[in-house]
């Protein structure tokens, strides 16, 4: 009698099952609050019991809140109501795995550190650059005495102080790109347009004579920065520094978005925003599976155009590509992808670490194909060279 009490009441069963279902959705990254749970009960009351096609149809607009949720709702519904357990596991997104604590530093250094044991050998980019730079990374490039840090080739940067310096430079660069006039008006003493509302309010006490004038002006709005970072084999020794650089950008910038690419494109903004550096880097390492492999620059840019550009870019965007331009795809593809990208952004900046090398000319076929679409092309293999592009960016 006592044990059967809950199950004897049909209403309680419905509620319990529904709560279970909502829990199941939450486990799959749905944002469902108590209000939605309450509303779902009301809906089921009006529509009829779960599970039915009709119930799924009615719960979907209530519990899903973006296209991604919308598309997998039916599968999740089915998994919960018709098969228990087995299907659920496979539907869990990868992000669950990324949160697992544990051997973070290890995972991280395995992917990016120079002192790795067996490196993840993917296919190397179409040159010997990847292999040779690995060796060079062990020996710091010559640096003059007064600015040992800034002139050192970035491949040699390892200590926390150096990384902090990298973040600082990133911040400076971001500031140079910072503002664009917005279409919104704010009160401003030096403005040229009248704020009539305030002016009239002030004039009431003066018999309607607008003695005190309040002005307004357009105000500055931050630009949106989107960074595409190449982490393929040929960029391996720079990847770590650049990641820190990108993290610096994201940390100071609300409107920034970051992507990594090698043979695939991965969005890493959320991972990089993580406050705990180690945690951030671990998540990143897991996301960037295939670090140090080859590059499919054109394909990744095409993916970006197709799936991310619409959402990530607006008329106030600056796209920064950090890559050496070694690409396995045909240069025509790259040109096409860049042309498409160019129509969506305000400025396209390409930072190439190889450009800083003494004997390097942007002669790879891909780089040649890309040149016409780039607004600013600069070297970026030392902190100095990065800092040097700041005035140029300010002018863009």
């Amino acid at each position, binding site marked *: 009698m006592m044990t059967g009490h809950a199950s004897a009441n049909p209403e309680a069963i419905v509620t319990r099952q529904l709560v279970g279902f909502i829990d199941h959705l939450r486990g799959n990254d749905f944002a469902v609050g108590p209000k939605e749970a309450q509303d779902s009960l*009301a809906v089921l009351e009006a529509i009829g019991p779960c599970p039915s096609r009709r119930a799924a149809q009615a719960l*979907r607009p209530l519990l899903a*809140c973006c296209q991604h949720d919308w598309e997998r709702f039916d599968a999740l519904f089915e998994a919960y109501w018709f098969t228990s357990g087995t299907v659920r596991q496979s539907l869990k997104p990868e992000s669950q795995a990324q949160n697992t604590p544990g051997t973070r530093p290890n995972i991280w250094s395995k992917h990016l550190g120079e002192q790795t044991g067996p490196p993840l050998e993917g296919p190397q980019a179409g040159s010997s650059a990847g292999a040779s730079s690995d060796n060079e990374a062990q020996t710091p490039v010559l640096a003059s005495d007064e600015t040992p840090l800034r002139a050192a080739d970035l491949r040699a940067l390892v200590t926390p102080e150096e990384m902090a310096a990298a973040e600082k430079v990133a911040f400076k660069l971001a500031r140079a790109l910072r503002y664009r006039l917005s279409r919104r008006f704010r009160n401003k003493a030096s403005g040229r347009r009248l704020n009539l*509302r305030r002016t009239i309010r002030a004039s009431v006490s003066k018999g309607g004579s607008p003695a005190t004038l309040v002005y307004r002006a357009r105000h500055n709005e931050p630009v949106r920065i989107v960074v595409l970072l190449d982490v393929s084999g040929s960029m391996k020794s720079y990847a770590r520094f650049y990641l820190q650089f990108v993290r610096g950008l994201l940390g100071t910038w609300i409107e920034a978005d970051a992507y990594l690419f090698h043979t695939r494109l991965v969005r890493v903004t959320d991972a990089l925003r993580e406050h705990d550096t180690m945690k951030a880097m671990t998540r990143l390492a897991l996301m960037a599976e295939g670090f140090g492999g080859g590059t499919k620059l054109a394909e990744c840019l095409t993916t970006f155009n197709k799936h991310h550009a619409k*959402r990530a870019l607006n008329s106030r965007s600056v796209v920064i590509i950090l890559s050496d331009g070694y690409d396995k795809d045909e240069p025509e593809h790259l040109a096409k992808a860049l042309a498409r990208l160019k129509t969506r952004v305000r400025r396209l900046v390409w930072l190439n670490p190889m450009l800083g090398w003494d004997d390097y000319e942007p002669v790879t076929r891909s780089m040649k194909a890309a040149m016409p679409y780039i607004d600013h092309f600069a070297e970026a293999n030392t902190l100095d060279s990065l800092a040097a592009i700041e005035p140029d960016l300010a002018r863009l």
Partner: protein
Amino acid sequence: MIPLEELKALLAGQHYVVDDATATAMQLTLHLGRPLLLEGEAGVGKTEIAKALASALNTKLIRLQCYEGLDANTAIYEWNYQRQLLAIKVHEHTGESTEEIESHIFSEDYLLRRPLLEAISQDAPPVLLIDEIDRADMEFEAYLLEVLSDFQISIPELGTLTAKARPHVILTSNGTRELSDALRRRCLYNFVDYPDPDREVAILQARMPEIDAVLAGQIARFVRSLRKEDLEKVPGVAETLDWAAALLAMKITDLPADMQKLQATLICLLKTERDLKSVTSEVSDRLAGAAA
């Protein structure tokens, strides 16, 4: 709750053909009183849903078109400055105190109602369409959240105005900007996809009763396969309707019959130079052949 079939019939009466998923979402919006967020590509008929709903419910449609830089003055209310200035001048000689004048010129008579305020001051619940919310900026979205949760607007000079009748709110978005989670949470969500050929035929017949059923089928299948091509701007339902009208006007009754004419009418469907070039006569020949 209004039955599904009844709602569909009501909308069909407004020449709007709706699928079950969208109809259910609208049903819930009416039942729960929560805003409905419609997302989908441009041209799938998101805005039309709101229009159809308003005329089906025989109520007022209030539309707020969003854009970057949209501010409170254009979305909510503004004071009528010219009238206020005049009133101050007039009252100057009556010897009224400053406070009296102030309370006079900041009364509802001097208020210009913009869409949001307009929507909450109706006696019967209107349909409030907030179009292309993704074009507005974050600041406006934040403000909208407040309005959508309480349906009240605070005007410093007047106090808080609360909705007499809760409007049915429909928001649309093309996804040019990611919306905040807070806004998404507050809304019911419906992703509007391009219609399947059957529904597109039904739409064609609802909007153009004079169209031949065979031609309508051909058009729907042609457009469906065209959407699968690699295009910059995929044609929406509005484009299909335009195209059908063009075909009717040019007296084309069978798609593959006159390919040259057909090719010329493609400008109704393809809206960029690259798309027009990529759909060559061979491509349209193949598509028309498959559609026939």
